[in-house]
């Protein structure tokens, strides 16, 4: 079994059934897991900020930095492995209101809104989510089974 870490502002896709993708410290960031049960492939995104128009150069070089470009890049990458949009199972984690965040910017909530906008545009509904609140979370995706788990405050649960 290969455990592969997805860092902040990164995304990773896989079609190896023994792969497990994990991303840590999802505070206000968005963690998005997508998986195709037929093609048996999927991916994980850890995006940081909602909109790429604040820094188009960075969005071009590192699209996973922003939720709008990151979700699109994740979808393109997983479609490249043979996934199909209508079959994709999407699970969202994170988008919390972290205590030291500036409430004016509402980064977590805006990450979630942008996610919903991009998924709606792509005809994908959210199958499960654990978002909001004030805690940091870890998201794990098993490529072979599509099972996704959230870890927070010492607890672990399937979503």
């Amino acid at each position, binding site marked *: 079994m290969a455990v592969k870490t997805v860092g902040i502002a990164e995304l990773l896709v896989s079609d190896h059934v023994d792969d497990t993708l994990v991303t840590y410290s999802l505070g206000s960031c968005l963690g998005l897991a997508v998986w195709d*049960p037929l093609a048996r492939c999927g991916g994980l995104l850890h995006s940081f900020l909602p909109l790429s128009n604040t820094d188009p150069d960075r969005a071009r070089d590192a699209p996973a930095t922003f939720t709008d470009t990151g979700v699109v890049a994740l979808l393109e990458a997983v479609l490249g492995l043979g996934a199909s949009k209508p*079959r*994709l*199972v999407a699970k969202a984690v994170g988008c919390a209101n972290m205590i030291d965040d500036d409430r004016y910017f509402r980064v977590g909530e805006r990450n979630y809104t942008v996610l919903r906008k991009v998924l*709606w545009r792509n*005809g*994908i*509904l*959210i*199958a499960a989510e654990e978002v909001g609140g004030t805690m940091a979370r870890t998201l794990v995706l098993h490529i072979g089974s599509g099972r996704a788990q959230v870890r927070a405050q010492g607890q672990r649960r399937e979503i």
Partner: protein
Amino acid sequence: MAVNVLVVDDSSTMRHMVMRALELSGAPLGQVLEAANGREALDALAANWIDLVLTDINMPVMDGVEMLRAMRDSGLLATMPVVVISTEANDQRIHELRDMGVGAYLRKPFRPELLRATLEELLGYHHEG
């Protein structure tokens, strides 16, 4: 078995939004028809075999409550599920809708995921994922 649906709302944008959410819901869809008010909806119900109605309340010509009362009085309401999708928030009105036999009420703006869960329960299908 394919479900024929009638979508009722005076806003064409809302009708198309609901229809898109319907397509993504995984429900086994047959024909999807539209109506811009309660009067047009009753005409569509009289002329077509409909299995499910998704309707707004506040509409010109004939509103959703009057339409539902007509459906109840004719016995039609007892034969199919109805989901109200509306900005309506008056407790008494929502209570009246439930008493009439409305299957579910979604407040606008509604999440397409909630429509999917609602239809899965009302129609008894399950969408993977």
